[in-house]
Structure formats: C-alpha cells, structure tokens
C-alpha cells in the first residue's frame, strides 16, 4: 500500500470527498438564490453586494460542511477505514453504513481529495505567479506620467476623497489602463494614451481607476481569486465570480458618471480604449460575449437586448442533477462520480455566444439588390425589381439587367459583369476595415466599384509631413493618413477628377472628403491659426486706441479722478475679457503644439516646431505691447519687457520658459533670474549654466500670489565678458 493509498483511505480524505460532493448542491442553491436576487435588483451596488455575499456563503458552506464531516481524531488506523462513515449526527440514521458493495462511491470518493488538492495547488501557484508578475509590471517598462496629469489625478483623488497616495505611470506593457496594488496603488496607463485622448476622456478613465482604488477592488479581487482557486471545480463559483467582476465595473461606471456627469463622453472613452487596443497588438485572439457592449448600453441607458434567462435555469438544473446524484450516491451508491455530470454543463457563456452569433439568412435577391449592384442599378430598375413577385421573374430580370450592360452583346462573355464582380472582390479584399466594415461599403470601395481603378494613386498610409500643392498655399504641413485618387476622365463628372480619402481615426477606414485641408492634423497648420490670432490682437488694439482717442481731454481728466466710475471701467473689463479670450485661444494653440510634439518625431516636424515657437514668442511680445498684461497662476501667460527684450512664458505646469533673444551673441551662456514682488521682496530666484538650447530654457517657477512682479534675468556669456540684463514687469491676477 503506497503512502497515497494509505492517505486516501483515511477518514479525513473521505470527509473531504463528501464535502466536495455536498458543496456542489450547496453552491447550486446559493447560485439560484443569487440569480433570483439579480432578477429583482437593478442597482449595481446591491447586485455587487449580493454576489460578494454569495461567494462568501459558498466558502462558509464549504468550511462548515468540512468541519461537520471531519472526524474528530484525524489519524485512525487504516484497518478500520473501509466501512466507517463520517461521524455526523445528520447522516447517522441513513441506512448505508452496513451493506455497501466493495465497489461503491465511498471507495471512490476519497480519491477526489488528492485530485482536488492538486488542483488547489495549481490554482494557488498561478495566483502567486500572477501576484509576482503584477508586482513586476509596476517596475519594468514604465515611466512617470507628465506633471500635468499627476496634478489632475490628485485633483480627482480629492474629489473621490481617497487619502492614500496614488502613483500614475505610463507602461509599455499595459494594453489598457489598470490598477495594481492596494496599500500603495499604482495606475498603469498604456504609453501614449494620456496624450492621445481628449482631456475629458482621460479624466473619465482616471476617475474609473480611482473608483476601483476607493472601493478597494484590488484587495477584493485578490481574495476572490484565492476563493476561485479553492472552489475551482465548481461552476457556480465561476459564475458568481463573473457576476462580481461585471457588477464591479458597473459600480465604478456609476461612480464616474455620478462624479463627473458626462456619461456619453465616458462611453466614448471606453470605446476609444477598446479600439486603441486593436491598433496596439497583432489582430489575433478571437473573442466572444458582449461585456463592454452591455456596459455602454447601460451607460447610455439604452434598452438592452432580451435578458438571458439561462443562468437561473442552468443553476436549477445543476441543483436538481447534483442533488439527485448526491442523494443517490448516499442512498444507493452509483458507480459514477457526480462531478463530470456537473462539469459538462459548465461553459455557459459559450452557449449564449453561439446562440447570438447565428447569422440571419439573407435572401440572395436582396443581397443582389442591396450589395452586389447597389451602386450601379438605376432608380427605375430598382423600383421595377421591387415589384416582382416570383423568383423566376427576378432571375429573368437579373439576366436582362446584365444583358443591357454587355458591351459586346453577341459574345457569351459579359465583360461588364465580369469587371463589376472583379471590382467588388478587389474592394472587399483591399478596403475592408479593422472594424469589420466590408470593403464594398467603404468610401474607397464605392468609388472603386463605380468608377474602376484610378489612373494614379498617391498614398500616404502613415500621414505625417506633406508639402501642400502651391494652389492650396504651399508650405509644409502634417496630415492624417490619406490617399489621393486621380481619374483622367469620369463620365458625367469631368476631366482630371481628384478624390481624397482621409483616415482620421487612424482605423483604416478612409472617408471621402471634399475639403483638401481636412487631412491636415492641425486644421490649417498652425500658421493660419496664428495669423487669425494676431489679426484678432490687432483689432483689439485698434478698438482700445479708438476708445481712448474718442474721450475728450477734460472728460478724461474728470474720469481720471473717479477711475471706478462705471463706463470706462466696464469698457476695460470688456476688453480684458477679450484679451482673456484671445489668451484662451492661445492656450489652445499651445495645446496643439504639444500634441503635435507627441505625434511627430521627424526632423521636418522639429523645424516646424522651432518656427512655431518663434512665432509664439512674437505673438507674446505683440500681446504684451498692447499694454494689457494679465497673468494667472497655473495658466499660460505671455509677458515681455518694455523694450521687448525678453519674453517669459509661464506654462500650465508651472514651468517658466525664459527665452533669450536670438541676437544674443554667445553660443554658451548662463542665466540667473530673480523675481521681486512689488514691495521689493525676492519671491523666487534661480539660475542655470551652460545653456545652449536654441535660445530657450525651462526654469521651474513657484506658484505666484496675485500682485505685480519684476523679473530680472541676467544672461552671461560663459566664455567671454559679454552680459546683458533683461527686465520684465508683469502682474498676476
């Protein structure tokens, strides 16, 4: 007798075996109860709590059963093992103890115990590996998120009242935003996602992750995984676990919408995340089920599809089957173990998915009309075809349809028809999008099918730098992926037709556009926006000048005395508001510059950036020259000395960009800066050496309280005697 056999014959092993059998019907009861609760409760919090309670009940039931069945003395001599039953008062009166056949369930049952233990070992090992791997993801291939987002996260953290510090990292391994850790939680964002999504959407996603942290979901999930490993053989455990996972996300969704409002923006963010995932990795891994679709429907509170009633029914089935089997095994031992019977019902989501995926049959005639010839059939023909009653008529109609278009009616071959189907096949082959839109439905497919292959194709599948033709203003610009198709002649349209398709979402779905500037990433490259803003500034200055000039001198003097008096003040407030508005637009430009910076890495784009920076600088000087200098902490502001000698830009992340004019003679220089408040106190000073970075340098600046300040920058040539002092007065409101 081997050690294993010896152990298997022990009372403990037998008790464990029976516990496993009993937990099957216990679990089914719990699952059924949960299914009933889920059928009634609508609130995700209630549903989540119910599912957690069910999981706990499952675990407690298992423990309690084991405790009751376990003999008080664990190790008994093997000689008496065979026929004795668990010392349980509940089961003592059953008439089984004495007359068992040698080949019965109680002989087999104990073998469940080692199998179960091996399973538990494997699952807990997996859990341990997961834990280590998650810890490693926090450290490898990550970098800190930019200050701007960390600050935003802190702000949101305050709104959710989370006291623990939360770290925001960008990870090159994370495919989607995730939370790792409980005591020192870390949010991992896929690299580039922060910069790639609109701010409102980033905020919504950060809120969702913070909601997980606030609800201690990581900890609960860890426990849940442990319990799953213990009850791995139990379909009910996996089902309940799935319910917990789904409701957890719903709870977080609710919290996000409650805190932030915009359900729609949030839904868009989730969809963008899911799409982003496709572009990231190879398009393998088929998936089924509709988790995310359900969530988004729920967010937008659209009517859901028919609710699945399979879960409760299945649960009832398990209950009946396992209950019957367990009873039968107890009363009159069956030669079969109950477990396989229960396991065979398990893959529930798969069944539902198959049911949903069954395609509806489409009539070949409908397909012919709405797909195959949709682009070439005339309205009259369509109407005629719709009127036909029998399939024979329709067949005849289709035959005539092609015959009318045959360029060589005598021959058996119909070149038109052959070419048409070739075009459809080509379109489906080449233009199908990753979002499963068939090629013939896309804009490119439609044009290809209608007009055939173009004479020339100018494809820019990656977008990027592009020189505009001179009639569109020339110059370099940056574009989305786009294609230009040129047809020398299209019947009914004209000669030299150029069609442009743009892939704005970078999803592979090119759309036809009429506006050649639409392909440009920054709508009409920044110069134009720049020009518009400068123009606005000019107008503003003019308006101010005429306002001042229109006031007679004596009146001006009178007004001077009562500066608070209404009219002038209101006028000033108005113009200040206008300046602020212009400023906001400038911020927008800066935002564009930054997103441009992220998207483009080519040398070309860099030279664009340099050009743009100098333009921005000029604009800043122009604004300051208008005499109205407004500054707020945290926000962009443009300042300049009275002699326009230096421009200082305070960026939103509190860094100050000190720009040294290009005419400064030395190549290497040091800058020291000090800022004095109006009462002459020094509030901030800083210095940098060996500056050679294209005439500009970032210096960390503190928050400045409201007031007026004087910034003095001393720039010294590190190699020679040249030095120059720049003085800038500015105020912070």
């Amino acid at each position, binding site marked *: 007798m081997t050690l294993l056999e010896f152990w298997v014959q022990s009372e403990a092993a037998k008790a464990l075996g029976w516990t496993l059998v009993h937990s099957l019907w216990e679990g089914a009861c719990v699952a059924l109860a949960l299914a009933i609760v889920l059928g009634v409760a609508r609130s995700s919090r209630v549903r989540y709590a119910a599912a957690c309670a069910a999981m706990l009940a499952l675990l407690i039931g298992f423990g309690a059963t084991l405790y009751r069945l376990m003999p008080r003395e664990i190790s008994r001599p093997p000689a008496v093992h065979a026929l004795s039953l668990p010392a349980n008062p509940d089961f003592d009166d059953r008439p089984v103890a004495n007359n068992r056949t040698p080949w019965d369930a109680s002989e087999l049952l104990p073998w469940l115990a080692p199998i179960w233990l091996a399973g538990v070992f494997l699952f807990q090992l*997996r859990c341990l590996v*997961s834990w280590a*791997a*998650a810890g*490693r*993801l926090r450290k*490898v291939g*990550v*970098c800190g998120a*930019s200050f701007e987002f960390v600050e935003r996260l802190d702000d949101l953290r305050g709104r959710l009242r989370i006291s623990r510090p939360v770290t925001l990292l960008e*990870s*090159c391994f994370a495919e*989607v*935003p*995730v*939370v*790792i850790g409980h005591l020192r939680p870390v949010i991992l964002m896929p*690299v*580039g996602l922060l910069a790639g999504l609109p701010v409102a959407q980033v905020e919504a996603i950060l809120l969702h*992750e913070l909601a*997980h942290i606030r609800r201690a979901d*990581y900890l609960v*999930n*860890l426990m849940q*995984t442990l319990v799953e490993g213990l009850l791995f053989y139990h379909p009910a455990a996996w089902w309940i676990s799935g319910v917990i*996972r789904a409701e*957890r*996300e719903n709870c977080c969704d609710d919290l996000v919408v409650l805190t932030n409002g915009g359900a*729609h923006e949030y*839904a868009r*963010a*989730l969809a963008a*995340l*899911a799409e982003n*995932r*496709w572009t*990231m*990795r*190879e398009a393998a891994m*088929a*998936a*089924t*089920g*509709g*988790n*995310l*679709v359900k969530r*988004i429907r729920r967010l*937008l509170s*659209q009517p859901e599809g028919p609710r699945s009633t399979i879960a409760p029914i299945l649960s009832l089935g398990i209950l009946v089957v396992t209950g019957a089997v367990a009873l039968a095994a107890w009363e009159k031992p069956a030669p079969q173990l109950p477990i396989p019977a229960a396991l065979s019902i398990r893959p529930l989501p798969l069944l539902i998915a198959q049911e949903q995926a069954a395609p509806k049959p489409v009539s070949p005639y409908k397909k012919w009309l709405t797909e195959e010839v949709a682009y070439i059939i005339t309205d009259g023909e369509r109407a005629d075809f719709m009127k036909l009653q029998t399939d024979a008529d329709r067949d005849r109609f289709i035959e005539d349809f092609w015959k009318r278009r045959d360029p060589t009616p005598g021959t058996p071959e119909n070149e038109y028809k052959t070419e048409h189907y070739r075009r459809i096949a080509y379109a489906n082959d080449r233009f199908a999008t*990753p*979002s*499963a839109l068939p090629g013939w439905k896309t804009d490119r497919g439609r044009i290809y099918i209608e007009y055939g292959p173009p004479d020339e194709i100018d494809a820019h599948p990656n977008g990027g730098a592009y020189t505009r033709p001179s009639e569109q203003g020339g110059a370099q610009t940056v574009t989305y992926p786009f294609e230009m198709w040129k047809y020398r002649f299209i019947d009914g349209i004209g000669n030299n037709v150029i069609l442009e398709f743009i892939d704005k979402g970078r999803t592979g779905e090119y759309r036809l556009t009429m506006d050649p500037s639409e392909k440009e990433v920054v709508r009409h490259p920044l110069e134009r926006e720049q020009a518009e803003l400068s123009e606005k500034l000019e107008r503003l200055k003019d308006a101010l000048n005429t306002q001042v000039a229109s006031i007679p001198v004596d009146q001006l003097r009178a007004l001077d005395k009562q500066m608070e008096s209404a009219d002038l003040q209101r006028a000033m407030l108005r113009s200040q508001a206008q300046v602020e508005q212009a400023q906001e637009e400038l911020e927008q430009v800066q935002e564009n510059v930054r997103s441009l910076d*992220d998207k*483009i*890495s080519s040398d070309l784009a*860099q030279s664009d950036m340099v050009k743009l920076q100098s333009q921005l600088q000029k604009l800043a000087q122009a604004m300051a020259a208008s005499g109205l200098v407004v500054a707020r902490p945290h926000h962009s502001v443009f300042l300049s000395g009275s002699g326009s000698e230096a421009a200082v830009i305070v960026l939103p992340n509190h860094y100050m960009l000190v720009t040294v004019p290009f005419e400064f003679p030395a*190549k290497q220089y040091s800058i020291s800066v000090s800022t004095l408040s109006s009462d002459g106190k020094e509030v901030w000073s800083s210095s940098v050496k060996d500056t*050679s*970075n294209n005439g500009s340098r970032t210096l960390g600046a503190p928050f400045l309280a409201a007031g007026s300040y004087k910034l003095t920058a001393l720039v010294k040539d590190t190699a020679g005697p040249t030095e120059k002092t720049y003085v800038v007065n500015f105020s912070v409101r």
Partner: protein
Amino acid sequence: MTEHPPRPTDAELEILTVLWSRGPATVRDVHETIASRRPTQYTTVLKQLQVMAEKGLVLRNEHQRAHVYESARPREWTQRQLAGDMLQRAFNGSAKSLMIGALSSRKASKKELAELREILDEYERRTR
C-alpha cells in the same frame, strides 16, 4: 535600417518608455523623468543612452547643441519583439487575473467594436 536592434534590457526599456511617452528628448529630459521616480545619476543615463545608440535602439540627432535622442523603433514593434519571448509573455499575461481596470483583460471583437460605434452614433443622433 535593415538590421534589427537587439532586445532591450529592463533598464533600457525604462528609457525607451520615457522616449515613447515624451517623444524625442535630451539626456537632461530623460534623466529628469527617471529621477522623479528613483534616484539616478545624470551620467548613468547619458552612458546608457550612448550604449543604446550604438546598439541601434535609439537614434541621436546631433543637429542641435544638446543631442536629442529618439527611439529607433515604435513601441508596437518593440512590444512585439518582447512578446516573442514566450516566458515574458506568460509572465505578463498571468498578471491579468489580478489587475483591474476600465476594460476586462479580454479584448473586444471587431464585431463588438462596430456595434459600439453604432450605439454611440445612434445616441448622438437621438440627443441632437
């Protein structure tokens, strides 16, 4: 470049992540970012970037006085290269069961994505 750069080490991966996240950057920028998370020497980062440039992992732009480095390969390419390593993939994949986030670890199918877009579009139509 026809020859593939070698697989980056963990330390190199950290620097690459910074470059992917920030775009082309100077040694100073990279150092500042890494130093905000753990203490590190400027010269260590500089040396590392020089080694990486030799290996072909990063490109160095010497047009400006302060050299600007950028990743030689896009993130997706390197991720695929790393994912080719079965052990690494199994390890990172196993973390999924413990991570929680806005999306499940299961990828949405193309059909679902199309459906999502439809739902969103319809919502916009209705609210307009």
